[in-house]
C-alpha cells in the first residue's frame, strides 16, 4: 500500500508537470463544452428570444400590440395558432408563448394576457416576464390611455424536451473518457519505450503496482472531468442533471475502465511510440464520429449503423445521456452497461494474453 501510494504520487506529479498532457485531459474538454455550447444552445450568445405569439383577435389593438413587441430587437416573433405554439414551447423551441385575447374597443373590460414559460429556464423566464410586463404597461398608457386594462397571467409549462446541447454534453463527457483511456495508454508506452519500466525491474517493486496506480489515477481524472463538465454545463448552458451524481460517477467509472483497458490492449500491439500513436488514432478517430455521441444514430446512413452498434463509445454515450439529461436511448440501460462490461472483459483478456512489459 505504501508502495502504491508513493508510485501514485510520483505518477501524479509526472502528469501534472506535463503541460501538453494536462491540456488534453482538462482544457480540451472544457473548450469543447464551450464551443458546442455556444453553437447549440437555443438562447445562444446573441440573446435572441424565441417568442410564440398567439393573437386571438385581429383588431387594431391586437395589431399594435404585435407591432410593439416585434419592435424589440432581442425578440424573434413566431406568430401561430395556440396549439402549435404551445407544442413548440414544450419541445423547447420557444422561450415564451404570449397569448393575447381579442381586444375590442370596449376598453372598460379587463383583458387577460397569458404568458407561458418553460420550467427549464426559470432565470431567463423571470427576465422575459418582467420586461413584457413593462411593455404592456407602456402600451396601456400610450394606446389605451387607461390603467389596468391588461391582467397578466403567467404560468409555466413543463418542458421535458431539451436543447441540442443537452444531447451533446454527455457526448463530450463520453469523448473525454474515451480520450483519457486511449491516449492515456501513451504514458505507459512511453515508460516502456524509454526503458523506465525495465529499469524498475531491478527493484523489489512489483510491476503490477505500476499499472494499478496508473489505472487508479485515470479513474480519478475521469471523475474530475465529469465534475468539470457537469459544472460548466449547468452554470453556463443551463443543462440539468437528472440523476444523482453518484449514479453518473458509476457509469463514468465503468466507461473509464472500458476505455482504459482498450487503450492498454491497443498498445500491446505497438512496438514504438509512433506505431502506438498510429494504432490508437486509427481506432479513436472513426469511433468519435461513428458512435452517435454528438448526433443521433438515425442521422447516419443505414450501412454504417451496424458499425455504430458494436462500438463501446455508442453505449457509453447512451448511458451517460440517460443518467445525465434523461434522454433514453434505443436500448435499455442494462444493455448499455452490459455491452460496456463485455468490452472491458474482452479487452482485458486480450491485453493479458499479449501484454509486453518491455
Amino acid at each position, binding site marked *: 500500500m*505504501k*508502495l502504491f501510494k*508513493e*508510485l501514485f504520487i*510520483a505518477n501524479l*506529479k*509526472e502528469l501534472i*508537470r*506535463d503541460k501538453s498532457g494536462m491540456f488534453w485531459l482538462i482544457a480540451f474538454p472544457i473548450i469543447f463544452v464551450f464551443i458546442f455550447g455556444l453553437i447549440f444552445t437555443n438562447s445562444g450568445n446573441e440573446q435572441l428570444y424565441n417568442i410564440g405569439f398567439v393573437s386571438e383577435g385581429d383588431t387594431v389593438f391586437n395589431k399594435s400590440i404585435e407591432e410593439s413587441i416585434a419592435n424589440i430587437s432581442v425578440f424573434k416573433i413566431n406568430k401561430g395558432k395556440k396549439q402549435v405554439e404551445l407544442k413548440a414551447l414544450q419541445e423547447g423551441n420557444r422561450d415564451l408563448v404570449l397569448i393575447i385575447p381579442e381586444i375590442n374597443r370596449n376598453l372598460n373590460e379587463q383583458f387577460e394576457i397569458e404568458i407561458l414559460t418553460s420550467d427549464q429556464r426559470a432565470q431567463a423566464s423571470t427576465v422575459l416576464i418582467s420586461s413584457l410586463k413593462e411593455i404592456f404597461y407602456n402600451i396601456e398608457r400610450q394606446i389605451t390611455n387607461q390603467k389596468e386594462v391588461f391582467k397578466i397571467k403567467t404560468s409555466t409549462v413543463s418542458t421535458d424536451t431539451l436543447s441540442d446541447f443537452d444531447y451533446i454534453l454527455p457526448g463530450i463527457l463520453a469523448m473525454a473518457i474515451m480520450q483519457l483511456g486511449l491516449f492515456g495508454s501513451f504514458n505507459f508506452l512511453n*515508460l516502456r519505450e*524509454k*526503458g*523506465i519500466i*525495465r*529499469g524498475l*525491474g*531491478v*527493484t*523489489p*517493486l*512489483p510491476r503490477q503496482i505500476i499499472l494499478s496506480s496508473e489505472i487508479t489515477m485515470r479513474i480519478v481524472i475521469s471523475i474530475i472531468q465529469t465534475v468539470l463538465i457537469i459544472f460548466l454545463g449547468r452554470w453556463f448552458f443551463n443543462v440539468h442533471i437528472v440523476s444523482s451524481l453518484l449514479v453518473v460517477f458509476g457509469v463514468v467509472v465503468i466507461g473509464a475502465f472500458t476505455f482504459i483497458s482498450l487503450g492498454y490492449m491497443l498498445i500491446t500491439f505497438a512496438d514504438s511510440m509512433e506505431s502506438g500513436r498510429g494504432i490508437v488514432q486509427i481506432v479513436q478517430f472513426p469511433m468519435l464520429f461513428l458512435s452517435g455521441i454528438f448526433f443521433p444514430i438515425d442521422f447516419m446512413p443505414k450501412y454504417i449503423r451496424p458499425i455504430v452498434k458494436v462500438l463501446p463509445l455508442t453505449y457509453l454515450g447512451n448511458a451517460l445521456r440517460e443518467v445525465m439529461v434523461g434522454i433514453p436511448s434505443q436500448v435499455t440501460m442494462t444493455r448499455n452497461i452490459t455491452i460496456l462490461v463485455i468490452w472491458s472483459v474482452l479487452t482485458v483478456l486480450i491485453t493479458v494474453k499479449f501484454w509486453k512489459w518491455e
Partner: protein
Amino acid sequence: MSDYVLKVSNLKKSFKDVKALTGVSFSVEKGVIFGMLGPNGAGKTTTIETLTGLNKRDQGQVDILGLDPANQLKELQKKIGVQLQSPALFPRLKVVEIIKLFSSFYKSSLSTDQVLEQIDLMEKKDSWVKNLSGGQKHRLAVGLAIVSNGEIIFLDEPTTGLDPQARIKLWEVIRNLKKEGKTVFLTTHYMDEAEKLCDDLVILDRGRIITQGSPEHLIDQNFDDKVIEFRDQNLSAKFKDQLKNSSFFNKISFEEKNNHILIYTDQIRSSLKRLFNLSEQNNIELEGVIIRKATLEDVFLKLTGREYNDETI
C-alpha cells in the same frame, strides 16, 4: 574459509544468434570491491542484468546471498541495489522525489539527504531529472542503487561519463560502501580504475572470463617483469625480426601496439643494452623510450593477443 556472497558457474546467455556469455564462472567474497573489466560488448552488462533479474539465463547456476534470481527474484531484489548502465528515470520528477520514491521500495533504505550528500547532488535536489546533465543523471542512478542500503551494490560502469573530480569522489563513495561492510560489484572498462579500486577482478572478453584475481596478483602472475616501450616510427621489418627472435634475454615477450613496441623483460639492464646495440647496428634512432611496471592493459594484451581499446569487440 572465505565467505562468498555471490557464486556463478557456467553462466550462459545468448540473444538470438549472439552468444553474449559463453559459460562464465566466478565468485565474489563478502565485503570486497569486485570488478568486472572488459571492452565494449564483452558481456558485462549482460552479466549484471542476468544476475539482477532483467535477463533470464539460458544455463548455469547462480547463487546470490543464498538466493537464485531465477525463482527468488523479488526476495533477492530487496537485499541488493542496482545501477544500470543506461538508466531511464521518470523525467519530470525532481531528484529528491525520485530518491524518495526508490527509498520506499526498500525496508531499511538510506535517507534522501545521505544519498544526495554521497552523490554530490545536494544543490540539484529540486531539479527535474530531465534537466540534469549526463554526468549528474549518472550519479543519480548510482544514488538510486545505494539508497537501497542493500548487502550487495551492483554498479554497471558507475564512472563512465563522469569528470575526473566526480570520478574520484565516486571512488570514495564506493570505498565507503566497503567500509560499511557491503559488497560492491562493479563493471568498468577503465584499466586504471580497476587497478586502483578493486580488491578482486575478473577480466571478461567476448563472453568468457579470461582471468580472475586481485589486480596485483594478475600483473605479477603474468609478468614478474617490467616493460620497455618505445615508438615505432617506420622501423624496418628486419629490425623488428631481430628483436623478436632475440633469444638473448630471459623471458622476453614482444608485442606491437598502436605504433608502439613493447618488450616485457625481467632483466632490464641487459635488455636495454641489447636493444640499443641492435638499434646502433641498424642505424636507428629510438624515440620515446620508457621503462615502466606492467599494468592490466598489458595483462589483457598478453592474454588475448589483442590490444585493449574500445574498438575491441
